[in-house]
């Protein structure tokens, strides 16, 4: 792809937890309308990078630029207002709010203006949520909470969608639906997606480009097809039980 203005560019970012360096000089970008995936073993720093985009924790060095604007030091809620939405790892939904209220939280940027329309789209994707609309988030099963976290992120009408392991704990059929939905949203609305997945095979199939992260460093990057064909990547992340 030619080099248009990247929607998100992360330049040389280092993030620390106390004295432990979790990211050491990470440079990653996502062009508008692209699906980019980040793969790597557990503990490589993928989720840390996702959280760093939102300033929790803050990048100690380096720059994060979204749509030409430096957001490195912006407060987290202001970052969310720029229409960057995240479905965090571990389903951090609001457990005491109902499904409906959780989705309303996602749609609060627009004062619920598009709530009916967007919630219908979410229910189309996850019919289970519709059945549970008045149930509290905390009483949903694990997989349903995951659906709710993704749905809530979609409700924000994001320009950039960060998905941290969307397939975690979901039935194979639902994973297919989600990947299909991401692809469709990307195709029809030009949504830019930044995807972290353990299911490297599925993620690379979906994405245009990918980065491979090892111990807080981006080790490799390239088009998905190249990474899929790369013997090193295959050995480390793809083989030994194809998902």
């Amino acid at each position, binding site marked *: 792809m030619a080099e248009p203005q990247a929607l998100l560019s992360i330049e040389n970012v280092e993030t620390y937890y106390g004295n432990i360096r979790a990211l050491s000089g990470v440079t990653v970008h996502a062009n508008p309308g692209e699906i980019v995936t980040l*793969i790597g*073993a*557990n*503990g490589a720093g993928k989720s840390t990078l996702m959280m760093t985009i939102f300033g929790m924790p803050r990048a100690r060095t380096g720059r994060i630029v979204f749509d030409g604007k430096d957001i490195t030091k912006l407060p987290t809620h202001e970052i969310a207002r720029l229409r960057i939405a995240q479905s965090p*790892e*571990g*389903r951090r939904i609001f457990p005491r709010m109902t499904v409906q209220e959780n989705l309303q939280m996602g749609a609060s940027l627009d004062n619920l203006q598009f709530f009916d*329309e967007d919630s*219908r789209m979410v229910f*189309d994707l996850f019919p*289970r949520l519709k059945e*549970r609309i008045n*149930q509290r988030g905390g*009483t*949903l*099963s*694990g*997989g*349903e909470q*995951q*659906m709710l976290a993704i749905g809530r992120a979609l409700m924000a009408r994001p320009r950039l969608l960060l998905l941290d*392991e969307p397939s*975690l*704990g*979901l*039935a*194979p*059929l*639902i994973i*297919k639906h989600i*990947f*299909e*939905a991401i*692809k*469709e949203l990307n195709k*029809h609305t030009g949504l830019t997606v930044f995807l972290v997945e*353990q*299911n*490297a*095979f599925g993620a690379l*199939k*979906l994405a245009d480009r990918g980065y491979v992260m090892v111990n807080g460093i981006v080790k490799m990057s390239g088009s998905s097809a190249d990474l899929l064909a790369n013997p090193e990547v295959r050995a*480390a*992340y*793809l*083989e*030994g*039980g*194809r*998902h």
Partner: protein
Amino acid sequence: MDSEVQKNTSAILRVERLSMKFGGLIAINDLNFEAKRGAITALIGPNGAGKTTVFNCITGFYKPTEGMLTLTRQNGEEYLLERMADFVITKKAKVARTFQNIRLFSGLTVLENLLVAQHNPLMLSSGFTVLGLLGFPTYKKAAADAIEKARFWLEKINLVDRADDAAGDLPYGAQRRLEIARAMCTEPELLCLDEPAAGLNARESAELNKLLLDIRAETGTSILLIEHDMSVVMEISDHVVVLEYGTKISDGTPDMVKNDPKVIAAYLGVEDEEVVELIEQAEAAGVDDITAAVDLLSTEALQEIVETHPDAGPVELIPATSAAKARRAKTPAVKKTSATTVSTATEAAAKAGAIKAGATANALTEPRGGKADRLILIKGIGPVNERKLNEHGIFHFDQIAAWKKADVIAAEAYLDFDGRIAREDWIGQAKKLAKESQAKPAPKKTGGAK
């Protein structure tokens, strides 16, 4: 079925007529199954089917509304788990579990987590602290044994060098393994694992498979497993039970379950190997839109199953597979077969249900020439809606293009939309697409047209 279940003495756990209701919500409805001693039994099913609730009943976190849970220990002692408190279940019935959302003591070190698991024997040997304070040798020995056992499991899960780190600082995969080790330190006879492979990559889940097989081989522990990762379930389990909406829909060996049309429709979609095969063929044919092809395949296969096998029976995925293949992968070689398979598929569909109620005026019983247009080309129509439209006799762009106001209302009723058809201008899009497809006519039945 009940009597058959009761006769079998090799079962470590018998679940009979188990029901769990939360207010008006029925989470488990009259469930019967059993886990054999020394076997790995997997519990699978769609999200929200009630799998974790079954675990919570077995481990005493919930008191079941109805039903009996009988655990038979190696020494022949029988326990009715539904009557016992959770800590007694661990202590006496020797059932241990892990959690879907990891619940380690994150502030304690890795080693301490494993020692807490051995609280019961340690407490006993320290004379409930008194003898321990006085420095009695029995306690010293017990403490040394506890550490030794912890070390044994740390070696097994490859975490010896992190024994003194806080458990919360470990990466996700390591925390999962530590949870298993902690459960094993209670010396269980039945180990219940709630999604142990969630969040693990392909290689890590292969390691997990090995760990679980080792545990069974070395300690004889029976394992009950909830898991969505089919590379784990199908590889290591001896027996698979499938739940949907709190009811059992299938029960048998991995191979049986994998090919059960009900399971495929409710849970699996199309088998993984078949998807992989399709992807490879699509790649060979130079199709760029692979994921869409896969998804199309799964939706189509489902529809096929639902329509041609309303009540189980052997399933034939092949026609749908090749149909999807042919539609996407435009290779002349496949096309020849495709024409016939597509028409058989649609014939089957037509026979099975014809047009659903509430269809629009210009609905057809089957696509003209046996070949439907790809309605998903219209912006706003996804595979799900395409299926709904097909079910209601809409197969072609020109049909949508010819819709009148009443038709739009009817279509929106069954699609569960309001205003979207007009907003996204489906009719305008359809007119354009209909014109295009007339300009360069789509290949027809004859096939082999190069």
